[in-house]
């Protein structure tokens, strides 16, 4: 009995996020004292970039964890948010909103991503599942989501052109701490991204809906036996996917100030790397993976030049999965760990 309660209280502590926060702080402190400010500054930028990868990686993790579905439309949802926001803003539709037009534009972009995600659910996932049941597992939803990726991308190309565009961000405020420059939008992004992930973790672990989602992740049949209307809950996953991708894109747009019809592909591939690096199916794994990929990217640009980024990121991924196939935070073998 005493052994049981000891284990229980240990389990209820959010161990992984705490470890992660400590690791990040220690790394930055070491960088400041040992490597000098330039490297520490790169690490700060890396973490900010990583917070965007992390948000997209969590979107991937959610669909993989609950639905066993690698959703290739996520990069498109990301791009849709940025391009739609730029589109409505640049055509002056939002002049009524005055100085807040940029924010309204981004919110519209996020809403479009959510709607697009629901369209994907309706016409790939739900249609295929109800028509053909388990025969369609993995390959067909995956390929049809790839189809949606290209269709949405080319719709945007036709409607808004293929050029990268400046998205006017009205504010630029920096914070100075320990001799480092921290962009206020960047800091806000990191906090917002972490807040979203923490909320999502809470929903998954502590609510009725979260328990239902985790049960579906393990066995849709059992969930159905316990009274979970699986077909009604699946759209929730797609809404969350659209929201996470859209919010990540809004943060990216505010921080880097430009959008393009191809912005999703860059982010999407790195987010997939981040997810696998952190451990498939683990939300906090996606967080750790996202931050690591962001760090790897800015540090490799600093030390090795811009062309080295992909090699460093994917090289790191290969090394990690050779040494630890379940990823850094994955609980068990690939594909078995579920949220």
């Amino acid at each position, binding site marked *: 009995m005493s052994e049981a309660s000891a284990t*229980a209280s240990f389990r209820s502590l959010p161990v992984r996020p705490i470890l992660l926060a400590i690791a990040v702080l220690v790394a930055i402190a070491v960088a400041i004292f040992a490597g000098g400010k330039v490297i520490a500054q790169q690490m700060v930028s890396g973490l900010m970039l990583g917070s965007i990868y992390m948000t997209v990686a969590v979107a991937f993790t959610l669909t993989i964890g609950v639905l066993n579905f690698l959703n290739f439309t996520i990069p498109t949802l990301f791009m849709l948010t940025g391009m739609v926001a730029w589109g409505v803003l640049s055509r002056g539709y939002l002049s009524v909103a005055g100085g807040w037009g940029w924010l309204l534009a981004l919110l519209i972009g996020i809403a479009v991503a959510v709607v697009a995600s629901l369209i994907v659910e309706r016409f790939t996932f739900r249609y295929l599942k109800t028509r053909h049941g388990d025969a369609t597992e993995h390959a067909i939803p995956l390929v049809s989501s790839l189809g949606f990726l290209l269709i949405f991308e080319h719709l945007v190309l036709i409607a808004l052109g293929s050029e990268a565009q400046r998205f006017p961000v009205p504010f630029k405020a920096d914070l100075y701490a320990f001799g480092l420059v921290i962009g206020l939008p960047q800091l806000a992004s990191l906090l917002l991204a972490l807040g979203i992930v923490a909320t999502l973790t809470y929903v998954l672990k502590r609510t*009725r809906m979260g328990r239902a989602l*985790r049960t579906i992740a393990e066995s849709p049949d*059992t969930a159905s*036996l*316990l*009274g979970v209307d699986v077909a009604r809950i699946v759209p929730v996953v797609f809404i969350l996917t659209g929201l996470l991708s859209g919010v990540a894109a809004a943060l990216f747009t505010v921080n880097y100030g430009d959008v393009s019809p191809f912005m999703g592909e860059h982010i999407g591939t790195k987010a997939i790397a981040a997810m696998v690096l952190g451990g498939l199916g683990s939300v906090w794994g996606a967080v750790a993976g996202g931050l690591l990929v962001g760090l790897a990217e800015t540090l490799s640009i600093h030390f090795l030049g811009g062309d080295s980024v992909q090699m460093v990121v994917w090289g790191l991924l290969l090394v990690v999965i050779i040494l630890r196939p379940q990823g850094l935070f994955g609980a068990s073998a690939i594909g078995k760990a579920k949220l």
Partner: protein
Amino acid sequence: MLLEVEGLDVRYGRTHAVKALSLQVADDELVTVLGANGAGKTSLLRALQGLVPASAGRIRFGGVDITRMSPPERLRQRLALVPEGRQIVISLTVHENLLMGAYCRSDSDVRRDVEGVYDRFPNLAARRDMPASVLSGGEQQMLAISRALLARPRLMMLDEPSLGLSPLLVERLFDLLRNLRADGLAILLVEQNTQMALEIASRGLVMELGKVVLEGPSEALASNDRLAAAYFGHAAQHAG
């Protein structure tokens, strides 16, 4: 009659798993379905809960036609299934598994009922916040049954609950089923343990290749030669 099944057919592609099966269970009755592996018992229960569609026939439960209802809708009619292999959600804790049992409920008695489970099974109480994967086979079966009971069913169906349990635990399981029946719960029990199932059941059905070949009061079935034949004679011939 609580459950009335008429002319039920279940097909998986070209396999005809259940053929024109009729079955009735009264309000506080314990009925057992016996038969060799592959006789169609599991298919019958899955079709009754709605996990596989009935290709023909009609299922009425509590006077309502549930033939076209989804499994969650049937659960809300208070028909529950404890599936083959228990199907505990191993990535959820013991407590979360129990809460999932009450997923279909919105009343305020859930907490009290979950505490009732812990009073009944102190082993589950001691492991309430551990992942359900740490439970032994017997504890998992207790969890699976408790989880089904938390939906407050009028009829509970169990698919081979004694499978893989030690003789001592099988005794405890059948005691539990006997008590539940005494409390007024109707039970439809699929079992391989013929002798013990017939001891607690009032009636039994014997299935062979998707059909009911024998039906009657338990005492009559226990002494019927055809029962042994269903397990060893015909089934073996067809399997061979």
